[in-house]
């Protein structure tokens, strides 16, 4: 079920009412994993675990044929992700572009991207800095101050191996809230995008919820995407239908990928 929500109420809406959280079906995640492994087994039988098939919510829903993301868009996304982390860990951002760029510069895995940002001409750099500042304004409005008792963590990497490691479902969650589930669903996921929301957003969120359910053995409570380009939010309560639809997307994507090779 998609919920319309204003950006400023985003975090409160994600967590929702404590009393209204659904009970975790302790057999659900195991059942989903078994179903997925059965359906994937044939199509990835030729894949070596040493060179697994990596699938992310984006590649599953939009396919690998969408082409690579332009460098400037990648840079904008990485810079805004750094600002999400800073907002939640330090509470504020003083100079969006400077802060975000220094965070990327300290990350050896971002060397190439940092180099491409430094190679921009002065006008291009100023335009990117202005864009990043505009995206940060949306973040400031939407994230606010999150209580530390909600255990906020940022840029959480998920990496779920399936079929003996032949397939790896991976994602990076910009914001994760809530403790691990025991009897009721407690974890909420927020994906932040610098692009506008498209009609594939629900399907992508479903896959993200599935990956988290497989990882933690309990489905998340809610998943949401915030567009820092528009301030729009898409939020979904996680239920069995969402997860099983996502599961079919994963199987289809693996079949298509293997069929193409």
């Amino acid at each position, binding site marked *: 079920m998609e919920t319309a929500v204003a950006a400023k109420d985003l975090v409160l809406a994600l967590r929702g009412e404590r009393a209204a959280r659904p009970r*975790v079906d302790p057999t659900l995640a195991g059942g989903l994993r078994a179903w997925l492994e059965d359906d994937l087994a044939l199509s990835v039988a030729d894949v070596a675990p040493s060179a697994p098939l990596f699938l992310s919510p984006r590649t599953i829903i939009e396919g690998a044929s969408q082409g690579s993301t332009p460098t400037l868009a990648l840079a904008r996304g990485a810079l805004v992700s*750094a600002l999400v982390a800073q907002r939640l860990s330090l509470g504020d951002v003083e100079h969006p572009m400077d*802060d975000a760029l220094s*965070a990327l510069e300290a990350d*050896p895995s971002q060397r190439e991207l940092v180099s491409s940002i430094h190679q921009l001409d002065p006008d291009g750099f100023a335009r990117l800095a202005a864009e990043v500042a505009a995206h940060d304004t949306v973040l400031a409005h939407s994230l606010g101050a999150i209580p530390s008792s909600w255990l906020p963590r940022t840029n959480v990497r998920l990496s779920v191996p399936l079929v003996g490691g032949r397939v790896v479902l991976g994602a990076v969650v910009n914001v994760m809230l809530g403790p*691990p589930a025991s009897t009721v669903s407690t974890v909420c996921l927020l994906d932040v995008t610098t692009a506008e929301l498209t009609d594939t957003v629900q399907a992508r969120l479903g896959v993200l919820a599935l990956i988290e359910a497989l990882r933690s053995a309990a489905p998340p409570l809610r998943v949401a995407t915030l567009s820092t380009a528009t301030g729009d939010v898409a939020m979904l309560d996680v239920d069995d239908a969402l997860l099983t639809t996502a599961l079919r997307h994963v199987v289809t994507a693996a079949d298509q990928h293997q069929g193409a090779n």
Partner: protein
Amino acid sequence: MLRHPIPTLPRAAALCDLATEPALIPERLDPALRSALASRLATVAPGRGAGPLRLDSWTVLNGQRGPRAELGAFTWSPRAARRLLGVAAARRVVLGQEPSPTVAARREVDWLIARSAAGDGRPGSLGAWLAEAPRGVLGAVLAEAISHATELVSLLPWEQLGQRAIVGGADPVWAVPGAPWISLRGRRDAEISLDHEHGTRALLCLRAGRPGSSARHDLAIVALSDALARPDRPLPTRVLGVWPSAGKAVSLEVGAEEIKGAARLVVDAACRLRQPDGLALVA
């Protein structure tokens, strides 16, 4: 032998049951293996002139795979600081000194910076790097530390374990007798005492990513380091590896064979590091 926790919720309880299962027969490290390992390492590892050689699971297992030059020299980064700060923050939370991983990580960073400002840290230390770091870098460092601390705090019912559990503290380090510039470190995040009288214990290691084919060796090297560093105690009963990103956990039940295999890997890695292209690992 590898064992897995029962896949039931809450996971913390299942992992706790596996971690705290009593030790059957406490085994001790074979003194002959200790002296043979010391002698072999002193012979095959790079000499004192190459500087200190600090071995751990990561350097040993990556040293097996290929040229040292690919590994690069150590520099601080948010990822490199993650475990050190995250474990220290988790320790503060488990001891009841701070209410949450976020607050605890901030406090830990502030403490390190203050220590550095007071002249207590050495050049190149984490505190010295943090003291010079711009605000954006501090945000990234804190984000990594908070994630690690949250994973560790959520992993086990620490309040139930009480004083049996020690989160953080110094990693066990064994300096090779006769070649003290070579040391072996066991990267572990927590320790649980199984039987105080006999000194039996379980070690807990959080790891990034997902478990690969070398996961068993990684845990065995931690067990070997701990056994060497604490000659008065028996071998650790088990080493639990947890990969939060993958939602996987496994327990290596430690025996003489695992320890011997780990010792062989350490010696092989030291041999490889002696090769001319291998100096990048010396940090």
